[in-house]
Each structure stands twice: as structure tokens, then as C-alpha cells.
């Protein structure tokens, strides 16, 4: 296009740009439903919370429940396990977080049972910190579910939860 044409755009130039813009917006608005259909659907979102009876979980026991298609660990911690978690200096941690920030009641630890490396399910009461050890790539977590060793970058996630009573917890 010559400089004269830029200074003095014709009606044809305007139509060309306007048509192109409408076409681009149209293509994008058709593409979005085709992409968004793969996101979690309404029935998956509807299953976003569960109630769990924790009355029967013994001290020292870890129970795995299914929440949103994956595992959640509910761990009834012993005094020793709580002390280990509380007394760990933050400088030893890869993803520093106080134990008190990860629990609502010290004896109950509730974390998403998915390794933050590549999503495997860690094994309980394994590894040198008495927490969990992932069978896939060897990440080790402590009794607060915090990452201590291995390739995982983050602590086991804490889901949203609330104690409905002393023996009932709502996850999600």
C-alpha cells in the first residue's frame, strides 16, 4: 500500500479491515465452545463436596476417601507425629509452611492425596519423616504432608473443609 493510500484510506480499505475483524471474532466465538466443552462439566462440578464420618478413625490411622475423583487422606495424628510436624524448623522446608497453617485441629490432618510432582498417590507411614513416600519418583512428605525430599515442588494440598461436629467433616 502506498503512503498516499494510508493517508487517505478508501472505502475498500475500511470494508477489508471491518470484514476481517468480524470474521476473526466469529471464528473465535465458534472456537471457544469447541475448546470449553473439555473443561469439567456440570455433573463433575456438582460433586464438589462430601461428608465423612471420622469417628471410627483410630489414632495413628490414615483413611483415604474419594473426593472429586481423587484421593484425600484423613490422618488421625499421634502426639509424636504432631510434635514432629510442629517442631520442624521452617528453614528445613522446601515449601515453608507452619503445621498450624495446615490443620484446623492438631490431631486431624486432611490433605489431598496427590503427589505434587506428577500426580501419583503417595504411600502412608513411609519415608524417613513418618509421613508419606511417593512410589513413582520418590518424593518424601512429613507428618504435616509437607515436601521434604525428592522432585515434588510443593506440599500436599489442603482442601477446603469444615468440622460439622466432632465426628463429622465436610470436605469441599
Amino acid at each position, binding site marked *: 500500500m502506498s503512503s498516499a493510500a494510508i493517508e487517505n484510506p478508501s472505502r475498500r480499505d475500511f470494508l477489508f479491515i471491518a470484514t476481517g475483524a468480524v470474521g476473526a471474532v466469529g471464528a473465535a466465538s465458534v472456537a471457544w465452545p469447541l475448546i470449553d466443552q473439555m473443561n469439567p462439566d456440570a455433573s463433575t462440578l456438582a460433586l464438589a463436596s462430601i461428608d465423612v464420618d471420622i469417628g471410627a478413625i483410630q489414632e495413628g490411622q490414615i483413611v483415604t476417601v474419594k473426593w472429586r475423583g481423587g484421593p484425600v487422606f484423613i490422618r488421625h495424628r499421634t502426639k509424636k507425629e504432631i510434635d514432629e510436624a510442629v517442631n520442624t524448623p521452617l528453614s528445613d522446608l522446601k515449601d515453608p509452611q507452619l503445621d498450624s497453617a495446615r490443620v484446623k485441629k492438631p490431631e486431624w490432618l486432611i490433605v489431598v492425596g496427590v503427589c505434587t510432582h*506428577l*500426580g501419583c498417590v503417595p504411600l502412608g507411614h513411609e519415608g524417613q519423616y513418618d509421613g508419606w513416600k511417593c512410589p513413582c519418583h520418590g518424593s518424601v512428605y512429613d507428618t504435616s504432608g509437607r515436601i521434604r525430599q*525428592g522432585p515434588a515442588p510443593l506440599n500436599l494440598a489442603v482442601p477446603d473443609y469444615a468440622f460439622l461436629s466432632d465426628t463429622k467433616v465436610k470436605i469441599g
Partner: protein
Amino acid sequence: MSGTSTYVPKSALGRWFESRLPIVGLVHSSFVAYPVPRNLNYLWTFGAILSFMLVAQIVSGVILAMHYVPSSKMAFDSIEHIMRDVNYGWLIRYLHTNGASMFFFAVYMHMFRGIYYGSYKAPREVLWILGVIIYLLMMATAFMGYVLPWGSMSFAGATVITNLFTAIPLVGGGVAHWLWGGYAVGDPTLNRFFSLHYLLPFMIAGVVGLHVWALHVSGQNNPDGVEVKNVKRDTVAFTPYATIKDLFGLSLFLILYAWFVFYIPNYLLDADNSVPANPLVTPAHIVPEWYLLPFYAILRAIPNKLVGVVALAAAIVLLAFLPWLDTSPVKSAKYRPLFRFFFWVFVVCCVGLGYLGSQEVSDGTTLVARILAIGYFGFLLVVLPLLGLIEKTKPIPASIADAVLTKASVPSAPSVAS
């Protein structure tokens, strides 16, 4: 090299048809009259073998899809149904599962042959890149196919591979949820993987069409790596010379394939995949299929999540840049003594990483995997660029015909490994 056809239909009907759709002439010029270098060895038969395997996988896969149910409740049982109840279901499934391994074995031979003889160099860069795209599509297809039986290793594999995307900063988690259609691998994931597993082979077929087209524009490379100068002296006709040779190579390959299917059909499968998937438990020792093990070993060798994932991706993507990483103007390793040495070091690194990927992690295996991973990337990023500057190559023959006539005085090419 194209446009060599002198095809004239003999019958009046043939001439009538050819003047309306010249497809018979196209086949004639591509697979009958097409000139191939006279010095090709059996490593050049893997192209035909790969074409056969693609067709075999599509045929057996379409049949399996008639009996398979893509749902997390039914998938595992429908595979058992295929194995026990469907007429010849066991045969078709074993052909398909072992066919995937045969396909990858052939593609690795084809790729290593391409590297050894410098087949990626000008004027074949686009041909090579199309090949890398086919390889990527093959890995995606094989991965999604492995998920379909919904065994515990299927589930763990789907989880680990899709979680690679969570390494992407900021958007990684959202991308993973989008891939899963939920908060973890589940029913929606299985269903879309089935859909894509059916689609991708046809995309592979399309790119194979481009690959063959590009091949027929530049012509084949050959063990001496010198271009065809005189079609009469340097080449022979595709049919019967290459056709018969390809059929013989394919026959030997089919013996190996049949041996796996009929004698050790489960050798390459994992026993853990005979246990139905359970989202709450991961098998104690997870391994991918053998053809992905070297990349898995690279991932495990690196202690940082993001760097590990980037290295895994780079190990594959860098292959597409080989035409520019290799700075030497001489193609064939026959005339590049230093390159030939480092090529075999590279092969040892790849095979070694594959072995380590299958082993449980210990400090020892991690250390060796790191050394081999440095060897892998060192070959691509350091050795190849430097060799072009420092290597003293042997004199290359003036033409293919000259190379053939003085063959006795030239170091022989490696024979086909079986």
C-alpha cells in the same frame, strides 16, 4: 527426481480414465518407474515396513473399536470380553498391542539410519521434520492407546503424563483440568482419549503422505550420502528392485512380529495392567512402555519438576533441529570417522537410558542416568556442531556408481540388526 514417468495406458479404457484422473500414472511414477539409488542397503526397507505397520494398526484398531467400550466402568471388562469371547479377539488384540511395539522398533531403526547416514541434511530438512512430527504423533497415539484398557498402569500412565502439563507456570493446573475434564483422570479423560486415539492415526497417515511426497521431490539419500548425478548410472527402477527388496525385508520383520504375537504376546505388557484401575492406589513400580523409557529416565534424572519436564520435551524437539545442529557438509558416517564413533556413543546413551528407565530409582541409577542424559544432549548440542569444524573427513566418492564399483575398498556399512 519427479516427472520421470513415461506411463501410457495400454487399453482405450485406461487412456480414457488417465485423461480424466491420472492416478494410475501417479502410482506408476512414484512406485514403479521411480529411480532409487543402486547402493541402498536393508536399512532402507524400514520405510516400507513402517507403511505396512501403519495400515496394520489402523485395520486391527478399527476392528477392536467394534468391541471396545470407552467407559471407566466397562473398559477393562470389554478388553477381557475381546480376549475371551470375540471370535479371534485375542489375535486381533495381540496384533494391535505388539504391533505398537513393532511400529516403534521400526521407527527407531529408521531414525537411527537417518542419523547415521545424515539423511536430514540439505535438501531433506523438511522431509526430516515431517518425520519428527510423525514420531510425535505416534507417541501421542501410543500413549492414549495404552490408557484405553483402564488397568492400573493405564491409569498411572495417564496421570503422570497429563501431570507433566502442571509444570507450566500459572496456567498448568487449568490446562490439566481441561485435559482431564474433571479434577483427576476419570471417565471424561478415557472417553476423549478413545476419540483422539481413533483420530490421530489418520493424521499420521496424512503426514506420511507429505513425508513420501517430500521424499519423492528430493530423492532418497543413500549409504554413501552423495546425490544422484546420472540417473542411468546411479539408480535402478523402484519396481522390481526396491519393491522386491522391501517385500523381503518386510517378510523378515513379520517373522519377528509373529514370534511376539504367537509365542510371547504378553512379554512387553505390564502385569500391573491386568489389575483394574483404582484412582486411590498407584502401583508400587510404575514404568511406561519400553519405547518411551529413555525419555522417562531423563525426566527422573532431574530433581526439579519444571526442569525435568523441559528436558523431556527438549530431548524430542531437538531432533527436529538436527539439520542445523550438524554442521558437517559430509552426510554419511562412512566418511566421518569421528562422527561414527560419537554416533555409537549416542546409541549407547539412548539404550542405557532406556534400561535405567525400567529400573527402580536408587542413587546409583540416578547418577548413571545423569551421565547418560548429558551424553544424549552433549551429542546433539555440542558434538554435532563442533565435529563439522574439527573433523577430518575421508574423501567422498564422485558418484554413487563410483562408490559401488570401488565398494571393496570402503568400510562396510552396519548390517541390519534383527
